[in-house]
Structures are given as C-alpha cells and as structure tokens.
C-alpha cells in the first residue's frame, strides 16, 4: 500500500532520477525530508539536488524562476500553501508572465501543501488554487487520488509552464492505493470518479472523497449521483463537466476554499453560460464558510463541506 504522501515522494524521486534538470528547493526539504516527509531520503539519494532554503518564500520562487530560465526544472516546496502568499508575487507576476512576455518557458513546479486538517487553524489550512488560477500563465493542479498525486506531479515537472501543485494535507496519510499507476490521464482532463444519472457533483482534491461518501449515502436512498473530479482547476475541463450535466441535468459544485469566487463560481458560471439548457434545476455551490479556517475541530468540521452537508445539499437539489 502506498499513501498519497508517499506517491508525492516517489514522483519526486523518479523525476530526480529521470531528469538531471530537476532539483528540489524548500525549507527543511533536505536531510530532514520536509515538514511532512514528502522528500524523505531524497537528499541522500540525490546528493546536492535537494536543498534546504532559508525562510524566504519570495526568494525561493524567484530563484526557481531564474533556474528555470537556465533550463532547470525546479520543484519548490512551500512548507504550507498558506505561506505562499509571501511568494505569490514571483509566481503570478514573474513565472506566469514569462512565456508571454519573452517566449521563454518557465517550467517551475510549486508544491503547495493545502487544505484543512483538524487543529491546523487559519494559517495552516488554506486552499489557494483560486488565487493562482485567476492569473493567466499557470497550470493549477489539485490531485484527489494517490495515482493522480503521482502522475500529475510527474506531469507538472514535465510541463514547460509554471505549475501550482495543490496537494491536500488531509489526504497525505488518509489515502492509500495498491500501487503506483503505470499510465495516467492527460493533463487538463477531468475524471468521472463515480458515474450517476440524477445529479453531478463537480469537485476536486479532498472534497472528491467527501462527495463520494455523500454519493454512497444517497445511493442507499435510491439516487445515482455522479462525481466529477476536476484534477486540474486551470485549465478547467468544461467539456467533461458539461457532458456530466448533460447526463444528470443537475449540478452541485463543491469546494473547500472560501466562498467568494474560486472554483465553484467558475464551474457554475461556465455551466450556466455554456450548458444552460442542460440544467433541469438551478445549479448549487457548496464552499467553506466565509471566515478564516477555524482551529478547533468542532468549528472546523462545520466550516468546510463534509459528506453530510454535501448529501444534504444534494438532497435539496434532487427534490427541485
């Protein structure tokens, strides 16, 4: 059995092994193996290619941009996604504008340990995909499975453009698979995580599993709920979303991020404009509440969507 976290480690090991242009840079990623052990033993296996960085997110990303221009393929680990606010400028204004401005690709991968876990609080729980997806010039990945964590990280390193890789901390240990995948879906394609006919839940990252649990619950009630795992939120696979809504006529977009804007707004807006006639009922959204992510599990459990709240939202939508 291999965990989501181990898959991320393995993908990095393979990238380092297969491509001499790859190196890893971030706080405590070296000897220590990273705050979450996503780079465990990599410093020993690949001497000189897995380097501890100072507490300087802006400079970490800035240096990766420079190295990418010189033909390297840096993988940068932010210790928590939340700290990438301090490196955001180099991502959105430098890495993401590079190709368009200079026709020079900027292949950096920024790993963001994302999302909430119990007791992590406002500054170690954020889901920042919307910020990076809003700016032109990045690919934003949000893997929900062990297989995708592995193969999409390899894709991220291979792509000639800046990739924001939002890996979910809740899935690190909770999610296990039998083995690493030998093949993968193309980048930018969403996945049908569960087929259905009554309602489409479109979601990504950890919420895929909450949605699947909700679908299982609803299936006991006789509803067949389809779950679409977006995999990348930019580009967004509108075709797959529309095909699903064409089958079900009902859309519930679910995300763990804050409610204003973001993935669920984009999904609903696209379906409303491009697939209006497919909808048999008003589309719905379920996001976190509009406050910082609470520390205490009692609050956190209510702040983010869960299988229970997704199921209840779905039930209401199914009744329309």
């Amino acid at each position: 059995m291999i965990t989501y976290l181990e898959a991320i480690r393995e993908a990095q090991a393979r990238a380092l092994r297969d491509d001499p242009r790859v190196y890893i840079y971030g706080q405590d990623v070296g000897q220590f193996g990273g705050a979450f052990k996503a780079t465990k033993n990599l410093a020993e296996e690949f001497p000189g290619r897995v380097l501890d960085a100072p507490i300087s997110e802006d400079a970490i990303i800035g240096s990766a941009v420079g190295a990418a221009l010189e033909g390297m393929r840096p993988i940068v680990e932010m210790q928590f996604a939340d700290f990438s606010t301090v490196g955001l400028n180099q991502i959105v204004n430098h890495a993401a504008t590079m190709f368009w401005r200079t026709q020079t690709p900027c292949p950096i991968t920024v790993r963001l340990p994302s999302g909430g876990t119990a007791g992590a609080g406002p500054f170690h729980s954020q889901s920042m995909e919307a910020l990076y997806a809003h700016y032109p010039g990045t690919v934003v990945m949000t893997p929900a499975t062990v297989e995708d964590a592995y193969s999409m990280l390899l894709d991220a390193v291979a792509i000639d453009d800046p990739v924001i890789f939002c890996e979910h901390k809740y899935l690190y240990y909770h999610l296990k698979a039998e083995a690493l995948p030998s093949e993968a879906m193309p980048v930018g394609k969403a996945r049908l995580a569960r087929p259905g006919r009554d309602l489409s839940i479109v979601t990504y990252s950890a919420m895929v599993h909450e949605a699947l649990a909700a679908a299982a619950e609803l299936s006991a009630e006789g509803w067949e709920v389809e779950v679409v795992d977006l995999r990348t939120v930019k580009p967004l696979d509108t075709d797959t979303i529309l095909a699903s809504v064409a089958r079900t006529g009902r859309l519930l977009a679910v995300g763990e991020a804050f409610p204003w804007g973001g993935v669920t707004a984009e999904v609903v807006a696209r379906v409303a404009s491009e697939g209006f006639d497919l909808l048999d009922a008003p589309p719905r959204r379920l996001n976190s509440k509009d406050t910082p992510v609470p520390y205490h599990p009692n609050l956190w459990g209510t702040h983010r969507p869960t299988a229970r709240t997704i199921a209840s939202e779905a039930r209401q939508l199914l009744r329309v």
Partner: protein
Amino acid sequence: MVHPAEADTRPAHSPASPKLFLETYRWMLLARTAEEKIANLYRSGKIVGGVFLGKGQEALSASLGVHLKPGDIFAPLIRDQAGRMAFGESLLDYIRTYMGSRLGPMQGRDGNIHRGRPREGMLAMISHLGAMVPTVAGALMARRFKGIKGCVGATCIGDGGTSTGAFHEGLNLAAVERLPLVVVVANNQYAYSTPNSRQFACSDLVQRAVGYGVEGHSVDGTDLADCLSVLGHAVERARSGHGPQLVVASLLRLAGHGEHDDAHYIDPQLRKAAVGRDCLRLAEDEILKRQWAAPAEVEAWHTAAQSQVEDAVASTLREPLPDPGEETWQALSTPHLNEG
C-alpha cells in the same frame, strides 16, 4: 556587548538586582511548568494541533517581558511563553487557548501560540514569520500620532525569521521612523531542522544592526543575568528615544520544533556546548549559589507553579468547547457587510 550603529550608546549597563532576578526566574519557572503540562497533555492526545515550547529560551523571553511595562506593546512569537507571562498574559489564556476552551481569548477560532489581546498591547501573532515586525512598528507610529511618549514596542523572532522580507522591511521602516522598537532575535541555531549555515552567511546576526542604522546588542541567552542586563539596557535605550534596538541572543532550543519533533538533527556538540545549557537550571544554580533563596524556598516555588498550572488545567477542563451553532461565522465587525 553593545554594537553601536552610530556612536552614542551608553558604555555599560548595570547588573540586575536580586529581586528582579528572582522575579524573572519565577516567570521562567511558571512558563516551563505550564509548557511541560501542555506537552504532557499533548502526549496523551488531549491537545488538537501542534504544541510549541520555549524550553531553553525562557531567560531571554522573560527578561524582555519584565522590562516591558503596562502600556507597552508586545508581539511575542513561538517560544515566548515566559515573556508573555512576565508581560501580563494570564496562565488561563495560555491553557484555554491550547485546550480550545470557548472562554479563551481566541474562542477556539485560533489556537496554541496564535493568541493575544491586542487591546491590552499583547498582539496575536499570525504564523507568517516576520509579519509582526512592521505591525509593532505601526502600533508605535500610532502612539506617536496620539502623542503618547515613553512607551516601547517589542517583538521576538528566530534566526530563521530574519530571512523573511517582512523582517527586513519592518525593521528598516522602524529605523526610518526612529521608533522605540525592540526586536529580539533568538538565535537558537536552527529554524526547524535548518541550521544557521543554511540560513545566513554573516558570522553574527547582530552585524545586521549597523546596516539598518539601529543599535545592536548581543546576549548570552542561557544566562539570565546577562539577559536581564542586556534586555533592560535595550528596552531603556528604545524608551529613551534612541530608536530601534536589535538584540541577538545565542541559545539552543531544548525541545523539538514542536512536540511532534524529536529534534534528532541538532548537532550533539551544540547540546554539550555552552549554548546548550539550560537557562532555568543555570538561574536556579545561581540563586542557590548566591543564596538569594534557600533550596526549600525554590522547591516551594516549583510546587506553587505546579499547582497553579494544575488548577488552571482542571478548571479549563470544565469549560465549554466551541459550539458551531453559537459561532457567529462573521469575519467582519460590521454585521451587515458580512456575506452568507
């Protein structure tokens, strides 16, 4: 040791009185005792989230706290339990926040070290290292606008935190405004697992003072007497209008980065070196050696601290936990501008 940025700092500073030494020692002791209790609770699964200790850094932190006065501003960081208490944070605020009590200052919305009471001059740190430096500077600008004189603002940071842009921008801004800001750098040799050699390349962080045009001070963070005297001096310099003060302490974190961490990466040589001595033990030895208190008295202080902590934990255990149904879920103070 004083490194004048320009010229005019005072030649020397006076040793702390036995009274102050003992008072500070007792804050250190209370902090250590409380942190050990929280660490125990953590090990028995009673704390959700991380636990971060200031073990080994109490002399430095408490020495800052005792030199601050009511009306001053303090933005402590991760390892400032002792300084918080010395400045006036209640033991209950500490226990309640770690245990998630709804009655704590953070009401379960935030936890552990992320607590404060801004209205009482005790700022609530955000995690992003360096962020509190400009914030305290701004609070001091406010005091100046309001015509309030003689106050000081202090904040603490680690060796790792000095690498942040926020630290640089904040200290530089404070220097330009010549604010009464004291920035205390606890150089505990590591930032999480990262040693100084991967964090900066100067031979001593106090060398940065001159580049900001502020006064710099070095201090032995394991030695309470030195901490009291240097911090006292630095706070006094700030208070008397000599602009920002940068204090750099040498010490070692005598715990993991958090209680999940065994700190195996710490160089054993450092543990054995002077920098690795336990400031609390040293202070206690000093007290006994100088006969400022009898062994039984010191023992009684330990017991008192212990029961104070046990009482606080016991009463907190009876308190309600946060209830999502009673939570306002409103991020804005202006009620009608909240969405959803």
